[in-house]
């Protein structure tokens, strides 16, 4: 409600706009609740990881090298940066700067894809050079590949979503107050970022 009226002045006052504002409210709340349940999904796997990690074999388990912090830090910065550009994409949309919005969206997609590329490189390195695998490296491989893979899948979905958003915006699907798709994309992308803050700390920093 607030954003819609702040951004583009008052509604035209006819029923259709009122209808839209109400629908937007419902969708926004539904989407936030979806993110909450998704957060619980991640939390459960994180709990599983921490539980297994503290089951007394030491970490990393014998025979496995520590993960490469330097590369992960660089890769994380790509994803965090995409969060910042996404924030400004929405800001520019709200202030009516369409071209700036489009550029910010493109930067976000590039940075997100870059993160996925970095993750692919890291996976390849782990599997080929260090012979760590999802099923063959005990609880280390299981928890690392499951959690980061699940997160990577979320990033992948997000990149696809944002690409569709870009095409839709170019085609003029979103107008004036009617931009819930962009809000949802921003919320989702921030969520994916923030999950990575947690995963980055628990896999690489502790």
């Amino acid at each position, binding site marked *: *409600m*607030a*954003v819609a009226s*702040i951004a583009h002045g008052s509604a035209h006052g006819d029923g259709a706009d009122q209808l839209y504002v109400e629908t937007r409210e419902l969708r*926004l*709340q539904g989407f*936030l609740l979806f993110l909450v349940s998704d957060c619980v999904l991640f939390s459960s796997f994180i709990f599983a990881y921490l539980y297994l990690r503290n089951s007394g074999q030491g970490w*990393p388990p014998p025979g496995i*090298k*520590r993960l490469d*912090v*330097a*590369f*992960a*830090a*660089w890769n*994380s*910065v*790509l994803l*965090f*940066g995409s*969060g*910042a550009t996404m*924030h*400004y994409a929405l*800001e520019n949309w709200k202030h009516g700067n369409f071209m700036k919005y489009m550029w910010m969206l493109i930067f976000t997609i590039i940075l997100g894809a870059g993160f996925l590329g970095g993750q692919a490189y890291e996976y390849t390195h782990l599997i080929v050079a260090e012979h760590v695998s999802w099923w063959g490296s005990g609880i280390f491989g299981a928890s690392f590949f499951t959690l980061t893979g699940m997160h990577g899948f979320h990033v992948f979905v997000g990149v696809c979503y944002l690409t569709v958003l870009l095409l839709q915006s170019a085609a003029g699907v979103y107008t004036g107050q009617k931009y819930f798709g962009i*809000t949802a994309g*921003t*919320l989702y992308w*921030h*969520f994916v*970022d*923030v999950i*990575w*803050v947690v995963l*980055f*700390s628990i896999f*690489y*920093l502790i």
Partner: protein
Amino acid sequence: MNVDFAVLERTGAVAGGIIVGVVAFYALYKDWSTPGVENHVFKLMLLLLGFGAILAILAGINVLGNFPKVA
């Protein structure tokens, strides 16, 4: 060779982390008084994003995640 890459990565992490952190906290400061549930969520997310950037910097300058190499 490897060492060079590591230094490059760390430098990138610190530089990028500073930029992202500044942007995130600046955006948070600008948005501080915006109303509505979605903006509150955005602010929480920005805060955590800034926190993530700080973590990346600390990892980059070898404060966090600095472990003796295990063979």
